[in-house]
């Protein structure tokens, strides 16, 4: 087990960035989580999580060019750093190993 673990929302946000790919910024990230995970997460929580992930070096961000549709504000794009990928993998593995053999239990009515 890695020393630090990912909280659930952190995990979801990292996965969302990976799924969206090159064009990952606030709006599609939130949309991806809402669509895939079927949950509407408070927007504020996503921004705060992104900042925390960046502080921990798991993602990095950069500003693009200003966009007129955004009132002249630039998009802040995100990319998952190698450390982030490692963390996602570790979390996935941890979940997987906890998962093993539980399928029948979960399928019980």
């Amino acid at each position: 087990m890695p020393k630090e673990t990912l909280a659930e929302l952190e995990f979801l946000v990292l996965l969302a960035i990976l799924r969206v790919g090159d064009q990952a910024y606030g709006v599609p990230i939130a949309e991806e989580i809402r669509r895939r995970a079927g949950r509407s997460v408070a927007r504020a929580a996503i921004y705060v999580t992104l900042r925390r992930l960046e502080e921990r070096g798991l993602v990095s961000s950069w500003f693009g060019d200003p966009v007129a549709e955004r009132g002249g504000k630039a998009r802040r794009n995100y990319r998952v750093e190698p450390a982030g990928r490692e963390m996602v993998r570790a979390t996935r593995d941890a979940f997987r190993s906890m998962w093993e053999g539980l399928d029948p239990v979960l399928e019980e009515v």
Partner: protein
Amino acid sequence: MLRFPLIPRALLSLLLPAELRDEIVGDLEELYRERTMTGPHGRARLWAWRHSVAVLVGVRVPRRRRGPGRPPSARAAIPRRAGNGRNLGAVRMLRKSPGFALMVVLTLGLGLGAATAIFALVNTILIQPLPYTASDRLVAIKHAAPGLGLEEAGLSSGTFFHYQAHSESIETIAVYHEDVETLSGGGEAAESIRIAAAGPDFFRVLDVRPALGRMFTEEDGRPGFMNQTWTIPVLLSHELWQRRYGGDPAVVGQIITIDEHQREVVGVLPAGFAFPSPETQIWRLSLPPPVTANFARSLDYEAIGRLRAGVTPAAAQAELTRLLPSIEGVYRDATPVRMAEVKLTPIVVPLKDAVIGGAGAVLWPQLGGVGFLMLVVFANVATLFLVRGDYRGHEVAVRKALGAGSTDLLRLFLSEATLLSAAGGILALLLANWGLSALVAFAPVELPRLHEVRMDAWVLGFAAAVAAAAALIFALCSVLWRSRSGLTAVLKGGAAAVTETRGRRIEHRGLVVVQVALALVLLVGSALMVQSFWRLLRVDPGFEPEGLLTVETGLVWRAERGPKQAYDPLLARIRSLAAVRDATAVSAVPLAGGAYTYPLRVVEPATRPGEAEPLVEFKFFTPGYLQVMGIPVVDGVGLARGERSTQPHPVIVSAALARRLFPGGSAIGKEVRRLWPDGSEVVMRDPASGQRRAVPPFTVVGVAGDVREESLRAGPAEIVYIPLLEPAVEMSIVPTRMTLVVRTDGAPLSLVRTVREFVAELDPTMSVARVRTMDAIVAASVARERFLAVLLLSATSASLFLGAVGIWGVAAHAVQRRTREIGVRIALGAQRSQVLATMLQESVRIVSIGVALGLATAAAVTRTLRPLLFEMSSTDPATLCAATALIVGTALVASWLPARRATRVDPVIALRSG
């Protein structure tokens, strides 16, 4: 393109941490724009508000961490500096006392919300410059004509040409006048619209560019002005263009029909252009004709001007005053005798002052009122912090003992106060935003610049500044009050130890004294206004307004049919309705404005030469007017329907006019003449002989009871009532606008549709303008007073409530502190009534000081209300007594509630708990 709502956007920029701001604002803007394209705008705005607030709360108020939490440590009790944890300590502390936090936020939000809404009104109307280029150089030019009894008159064509040619301090002068005309054609119903008749200079002064088409040019004025065959150009307001012409650009070049004349639309003015008034819909090219120019035959042109840079209005006025004498001899009536008689004096004032007019008298007291409410709010919240501080002494001492320095504590208090103030500020903005639209809807129509009022950056700045000041004050209060208590004493004694200190008690009571005093000032102010308003409503207007419907109509003047022929059939049809008792028409109903005024001369005894006759009102009426209105006939005949006079030119005068003209005698049978405004006799060509001769004088046949014509405040008006008879009593002027007055048995407004239909059937050129009940006209005439009374009253109830809460708090606190003492007293045999008296004593002392302070302040402050008070002094003893009684009563009830609890103390329990 729809912009993101201003307030949430400003809140986001103001309150989001810098590292998140651009990203979040950008994302929200993007989503908002998407929403405006797919759904209704109102919903998108709501979405923007909801999400902005949600994001702010989410980012600013961190939740309890889920999952593995940090172990509680001593340092965690002290606010951390880093990032989102900055407010964590404060949030935790506030979460422990949600009641306190809620009270602070609600109190601050309500008080500041009211203050912000009123500030928005005052700021736009009184403080912000007019929305024109270099508007500080714009002036209104008027005259005073004391010789004619006119404190304020306009320009004549002659004085306009004179000033225009010679003034150096005024770059451009323009004259205009306002009118109501009928716009018809285009397959739409005819409508009455406000028109401004002005020349090209009018728009040059204001520096306006057209939204569509062009403005008037110098060339427009040249080709034979006053030549009726030429199509006069007009400009449309943006609103009219959108409403009646569907915003069609092809309107430029179209010919439209105004008062049955063809006019050519040459352009559309920009949206929001509202001069001379927001109701002005059409600007028609009009220039004073040089041929008929005169010195003072009619002083009815309004004038505006643009000063040269660096010239003050006072300097311009001095220059015009210097220029005026040289007009002598330039115009026929500019004779030395006439000039000495009229005593014309130019007046130049900033245009903004002219636009604002008397609005300051209504708005400044309101701002003062909410200022007082704000102070009550501050005192109240400070009390809350103080009481809370008493109970928190222990907790703070523990923090200190664990190593928190005073900087740490200050930061903690500051972030706590900031959090509360910010929440209060946001609530205030929400309330103000909502309240402002209510205010604008409720404000009297004559309040100028209402269409400009909105929540702008100034208003946001005001709310933010007050909230920030509040945060600072509360934080400092917390620190100062706390630093006095000794550490060990507090740790030993717990909460009780702090509450005993004498200094604390004085501060606490001092705050309550202030609250009582401020609440009393507000109470006196609003009591004065409410009483004035009530007295105004009880003034006998001289007629019976109940059950009267008034319908203003406009009529295109035609030589072949006079107003009598136009209105008689209409009135006959209206009278045939079952619900109608009687109906009549008059050129202007009381309190609605729009009367004709001319000088009046008594034929015998004649006025001394050189003495100008004062102006009186002339009203045209169809027989039966006095009876329909319920105005009594005090002498002679009332010219009821069917009643004929033997005199050839009969008129009725009001009692006030009869008193002045014929003191001590009867007015009946006396002869009077209407004059032109310049004092000359009315001369007409006799159709039979073709000779020009003075029109015959009127003979007074009746005296009508006094009527409040101008306002309920002003005294009874001097009126000449001229009946519309055949042959015409008054031959030289004809009323074009008449108001139908219908006395009904049921609800007056239920007849409106039928009357409109009758008008349309009988005369398609007649237009129906405002339809109001007489009751509504009376109510509108006191709208200013009501507006102020209602607003002050709401500020007062809020402050009274807060003051009561403050007193209740002090009393409850005292009772709690002295539970043990009370127990001892009761155990030793004290009567419960004695205990109650002892407990009330303290409150009485506090309230007395507050009342004394409040009365002194009220005496000084309510002087500003004087111009709005009606028949009462600002130090009306009955009002002062009643207000004091109400404050004292409220205070006693507020302190009696907890005191009563004290008397129920069970001595055994009280003694044990000590």
